[in-house]
């Protein structure tokens, strides 16, 4: 049984923050498929397109028929733990600081044996279920879980290293005015976040759900305007050293594309919030988060961007907004590369049209705030990098993967519907 996590003690500000170290990140190109699967929480291995043999470790040619047509596919994660060991000395500093560390050999029902991390509740000879998770180096690794859920299993120390569970972590949600803020805050409270800071711009200007926000336990509303560098720096000075999870939910949405807008004013606002807002936040909060990636149980863990799925393919009805999100998506990849050093994850949550006033004329389905919040929490608990919320977003990414050019035509013809 996993010992439940206890709330970490208040940190002595005079104490040195441990420098984040990482497991080895070196991988062959073929092995990067594990990271791609982990980014979305899928269990995928290479399967030979010709003879269907499942391959492991990842490779360039089939171990059975020498075909080079190896395709990453969702496969059964079931297997049996046939041997285990507890590593007590390691040549890698990351593991050395975290020993004892348990690893094992799992014989998969679909064929290969793998070496994997092992959950404390899985015993040798047990049936286990494998998952692929991103480790602190950002690479995909195999992890064996007990076949059936056990109490507090998410608190397993190895597992917590590979997820961004909000439990006992301190969260900043950047935009109180966004209609999704109460649902997000509520979900973090339910997930046992220890403090939920919420940034609020133009505090003098009322908005309908302020009271509801204030009533959510552990919520603390603080001034923050992501379009104002001074305001962002001021808040970072105050809480930057204790922000473990940052949820960048500020967004500026207006319908319209290029020609029918007579000037660039809305576009400038869209870029200022959706693109430069992320950059200002990252410049102010990023350094401390990157430095606190190994700061005990409530270390800095994740940066969450809530983006439009139209970042992938432009929706002309919201053409300029889509473009600002495409820019934000690109910037998030840069941020991911920069936060990597600290082992801090960047998770993008892509949503289709949301249930709010600026998407009012669009037909359903629309993403409800509660659904969005659930995806954010779920993604953090699973340590994901890419989350697609709702049918529209899932459908769009499917189409994008099948052919971005075809999707571009579909976006014109269907009006994105």
């Amino acid at each position, binding site marked *: 049984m996993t010992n439940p996590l206890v709330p970490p003690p208040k940190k002595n500000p005079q104490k040195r923050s441990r420098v984040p170290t990482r*497991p*080895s990140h*070196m*991988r*062959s190109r*073929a*092995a990067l498929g594990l990271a791609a699967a982990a980014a979305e929480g899928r269990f995928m291995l290479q399967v030979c397109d010709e003879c269907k043999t499942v391959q*492991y*470790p*990842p490779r360039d040619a089939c*171990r059975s028929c020498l075909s080079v047509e190896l395709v990453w596919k969702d496969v059964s994660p079931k297997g049996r733990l*046939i*041997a*285990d*060991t*507890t*590593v*007590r*000395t*390691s*040549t*890698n500093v*990351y*593991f050395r600081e975290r020993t004892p*560390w*348990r*690893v*094992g*050999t799992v*014989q998969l029902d679909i064929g290969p*044996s*793998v*070496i*994997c*991390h092992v959950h404390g509740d899985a015993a*040798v000879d047990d049936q286990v279920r494998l998952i692929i998770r991103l*480790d602190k*180096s950002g*690479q995909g*690794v*195999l992890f064996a879980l007990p076949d059936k859920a056990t109490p507090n299993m998410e608190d397993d120390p190895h597992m917590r290293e590979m997820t961004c569970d909000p439990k006992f972590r301190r969260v900043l949600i950047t935009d109180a005015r966004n209609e999704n803020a109460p649902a997000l805050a509520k979900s973090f409270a339910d997930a046992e976040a220890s403090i939920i800071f919420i940034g609020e711009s133009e505090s003098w200007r009322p908005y309908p759900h302020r009271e509801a926000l204030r009533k959510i336990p552990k919520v603390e509303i603080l001034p923050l305007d992501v379009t104002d560098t001074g305001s962002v720096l001021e808040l970072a000075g105050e809480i930057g050293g204790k922000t473990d999870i940052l949820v960048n939910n500020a967004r500026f949405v207006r319908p319209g594309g290029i020609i029918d807008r007579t000037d660039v004013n809305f576009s400038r606002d869209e870029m200022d919030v959706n693109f430069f807002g992320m950059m200002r936040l990252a410049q102010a909060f990023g350094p401390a988060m990157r430095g606190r990636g190994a700061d005990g149980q409530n270390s800095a863990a994740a940066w969450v961007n809530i983006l439009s799925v139209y970042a992938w393919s432009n929706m002309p009805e919201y053409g300029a907004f889509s473009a600002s999100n495409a820019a934000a998506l690109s910037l998030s990849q840069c941020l991911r590369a920069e936060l990597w050093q600290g082992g801090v994850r960047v998770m993008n949550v892509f949503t289709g049209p949301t249930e709010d006033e600026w998407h009012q004329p669009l037909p359903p389905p629309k993403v409800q705030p509660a659904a969005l919040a659930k995806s954010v929490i779920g993604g953090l608990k699973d340590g994901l990098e890419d989350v697609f919320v709702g049918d529209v977003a899932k459908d769009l990414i499917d189409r994008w993967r099948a052919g971005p050019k075809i999707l571009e035509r579909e976006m014109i013809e269907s009006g994105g519907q």
Partner: protein
Amino acid sequence: MSSKRQGYGGVVVAAPVTVPYQRFSKETAHWWIARALRKLTRSAGIKPADLDGFSVSSFTLFPDTAVGLTQHLGLTPRWLDHIPFGGASGVAALRRAARAVQAGDANLVACVSGDTNHVDSFRRMLSSFSRFAQDASYPYGSGGPNACFALLTDYYMRHFGAKREDFGAICVSQRENALRNPHAIMKKPLSLQQYMDARAISDPIALFDCVMPVAGAEAFLVMREEDARAANLPYAQIRSTIERHNAFAEDPIQMRGGWEMDIDELYGMAGMTTDQIDVVETYDDYPVIVMMQLEDLGFCAKGEAPEFVRSHDLTIDGDFPHNTSGGQLSAGQAGAAGGFIGMVEAIRQVTGSAGPTQVKDAQTALVSGFGMINFDRGVCSGAAIISGSEAS
């Protein structure tokens, strides 16, 4: 198929050479290999220019290979080999060189292995040992071979009821042998109690299950019998050899090595049975793999090695002399030279030149090699039977 193989008649192995090991060295593999070659040529009474064949095994030569060494050391061989098989390199070097000499491609082949050991070289080697290790074992705790062999040992113990004491018996007897080897890195006696009480490394592997990485070199010569006799060099006959890679790939975890596939050929070619073997030198980076070799090489049935080590005395004067120099477990693991230590000691044993570790009347030795934990198991295996020139 096996009966078609040609014997090694007329080809012999001679001039066993060890460059005494050091725990750490600031020198390079080139330096260690040069020392071995110099010692080899002097002990054989030849000049480096007389060598027309050269075989090299080393992990730490990078960016060089055997090619770079020819220029570095001023050799002009007409036959050149580089064997990256780790613990199986000694057997592989012998059998390849023997065929070259037999075919006339070379007259005199120096087989050399050597590695340096810098303070950080073990960690560096582990992190990029092989592509599969880099991708699929090192990221999991980075326990290196300790962790991989811990998994094999755990599985072996569960399946065959081996106890830690059984592995301890191997380690303790090898330490006793090592105390008679002046070159052994380990100089203090080891009791079973000390073995049992040792610090855990990667359960069930503890400190004395692990070899000590060191710097060092080993070498021998392969040549025609008539040339050895003319030079008045003690030599050994090559009775048979086997080699196998990636055997039993479908086994979910390693419980046996390639020896099992080729054992009939090994004894058939030599025209011998196990009871005619006087000395056994197995590859011993961890005691579990010694047990697998005792089984796969026919000294007992699969799963019976624990009982075998309980009922035999594995020391030099015992009823089953095994790893008489102390093996890697007590003499040290000098990188790829770990694949040569058993071969070089076996040549000494059957030529009667082992000195303090000499097994009385040793005529025939079996040498076994095992190498390269490419991912979850050792991929290379090999074995050779050699006899002193007086053996029939």
